[in-house]
């Protein structure tokens, strides 16, 4: 049977994240935590392959202990096993050690045929992690997939590129990053959710993965954030104009060379 790993991340619901009007920083405290939406699309393709040919699906996520709820949700949608990669040593990681840590997890699982992930997360939108994992593992990768199928040892995917679609056929093992909204994820089932809660989520730390502290977390991150700047939205000039004033407005715009009136 196929072994599939789906990489997911718990993120604050982007529709509920507010920008602090004074500090100009993101206020995530009010936003509820959800599974990164594109990851659910990735999971759905994994589940479709499971429905078609049978597969063991393991969901993995690197994050704080409370991220187990996101993994349980994926199990309630049909994944078989959940592993939370959590350790203080992993804190502050940029995309490089994140990729390394996830790759180490997949390597430890062993015999993985397909690795899925969303193409990017809504909270950082780098799109680095999926390709990074493939490189660390030394396997082929398919990015920007909007359709994914599996047949006789091959993943057949349609990539959504700027100048058109590209259909590729890649032999396993392969890593696939899936575009947001490329399918409709199935609902959670009560039966599966009860079973998932009873089964629980495994927790792996730096020792289980055999990684060194200097390779992971902040210490293993080559990115240095020097400063952050909030880009202010330009002020929009709103004016309410009643119809009887329209001639004045037109004359004003013509005088400022903003518009031209035909024939003149």
């Amino acid at each position, binding site marked *: 049977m196929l072994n599939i790993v789906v990489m997911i991340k718990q993120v604050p619901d982007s529709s509920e994240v507010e920008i602090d009007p004074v500090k100009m920083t993101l206020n995530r405290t009010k936003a509820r935590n959800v599974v990164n939406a594109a990851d659910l699309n990735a999971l759905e393709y994994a589940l479709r392959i499971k429905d078609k040919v049978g597969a063991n699906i393991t969901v993995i996520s690197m994050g704080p202990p409370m991220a187990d709820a996101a993994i349980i949700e994926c199990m309630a949608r049909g994944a078989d096993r959940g592993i939370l990669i959590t350790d203080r040593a992993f804190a502050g990681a940029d995309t490089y050690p994140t990729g390394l840590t996830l790759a180490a997890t997949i390597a430890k699982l062993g015999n993985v045929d397909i690795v899925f992930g969303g193409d990017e997360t809504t909270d950082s939108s780098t799109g680095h992690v999926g390709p990074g994992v493939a490189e660390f593992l030394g396997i082929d990768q398919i990015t920007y997939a909007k359709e994914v199928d599996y047949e006789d040892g091959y993943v057949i995917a349609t990539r959504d590129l700027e100048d058109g679609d590209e259909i590729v056929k890649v032999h396993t093992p392969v890593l696939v990053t899936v575009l947001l909204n490329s399918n409709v994820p199935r609902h*959670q089932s*009560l039966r599966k959710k009860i079973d998932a809660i009873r089964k629980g989520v495994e927790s792996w730390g730096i020792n289980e993965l055999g990684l060194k502290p200097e390779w992971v977390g902040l210490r293993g991150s080559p990115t240095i954030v020097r400063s952050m700047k909030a880009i202010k939205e330009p002020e929009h000039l709103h004016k309410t104009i009643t119809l009887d004033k329209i001639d004045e407005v037109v004359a004003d715009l013509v005088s400022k060379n903003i518009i031209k009136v035909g024939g003149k």
Partner: protein
Amino acid sequence: MSEFDVIVIGAGPAGSSAAIKLAQGGMNVLLVERGDPPGTKNVSGAVLWGDELSKVVPDWERSAPIERYVTRKEVAFLTEKSKIAISYSSQDLMERKSGKIIVRGKFDQWLARKAKDAGAMLVTGITIDKLVIDGGKVIGVMQDGDVITSDAVIVAEGANPRVLINSGLRPKLSDHDVALGIKETIKLPENVINERFNVDSKGGYASEFVLGFLDDGILSGGFLYTNRDTVSLGIVASLDRLRANGMTHSYDIMGKFEEHPFIKNLIKDGIPDEYAAHLVPEGGLASMPKLYGNGYLVTGDAAMFTFSNGMVLQGINYAITSGILAAETILENKGKISEETLSNYVNKLRNSYVLSDLYTFNGIQNVTWSDFTQKTMPKILDSVMMSMFDERGMPKKHLMQVLSAAVKSNGMKYTELISSGYRMMRKM
């Protein structure tokens, strides 16, 4: 052998209170909630009156997310240009801490967490399709084709009782059974709220309004509660009347309420944060489903346990109490669940304020949802107040003469006023 002792449908005040009580009694409980997290499907003001929760969570006020305590309670009639209010501020009310202003999104999540801590299995983000009935007995619930079994089910699904309807255990809701509520949450700085509503940072203002300025035929109440740094503003409109007057939409009513001169100033410069609509049980005894059957009990809004006499709107306390009583009934009959043993739930409800209040105030809907209360009364009161307070250099009249003139000018007979007024006082 069932998978669970009890399945509770809905992690609102009724469901979570029931689950806590059952788990404390050593039962294997599954608490299933549609919202994720609990409270996200709720639209409520809200004021929680009383202290029933201390029966299952001692010292609950210490950890509960309470926004403010009601120290200023108002009941007001709004006409187009006026507001006639009974305003009660009291230090005793402050000391008693009887009315807790809460935000249900936070409160329900907190209470569901208490149920989980007590040992219930909390499952969120799942909607139950219906109860599974086998040989006349409820043996569990159905979701997405799967059957999860239990010895008993507590239905605490709220004002839109889909599970009961899908299970054939109550008729579909009619316009008499429910009203339509709309609530807006408006952000205002805490100190602005304190100043504007004349409360200190612990104290809060809660007000119910009769919206007497609406178009003929449309009946709607309004409410305004101060949270810590938001204000909950909303309406509860009669569906009957909305349907009969097709040109008026519920959001028009909300818009007019927000724009009313005496409301507008209270929410000035506020930033709208949430806007949502929900059904509100209003039918009382006549709309109530059967409260128990072989293997199931109905609690809270799903049982239509709400109270409104125009002076106060209550429901959360009825939900909590009914949830606890349902749990008690099941605990007392462990291993011998039947229609007969569960019927004791109704006795418990009758002995508590839940059903007593519903019987005492049976028919109150005909008073609160009447043109007399919502249209004529505000106009008469407005005429009376205006003649009392507007000095025009004319000889003054006795109150009775003023009242009589006000009644006449509003096209009513004095005897009608007395009989309507008497009926109203009796029902309230």
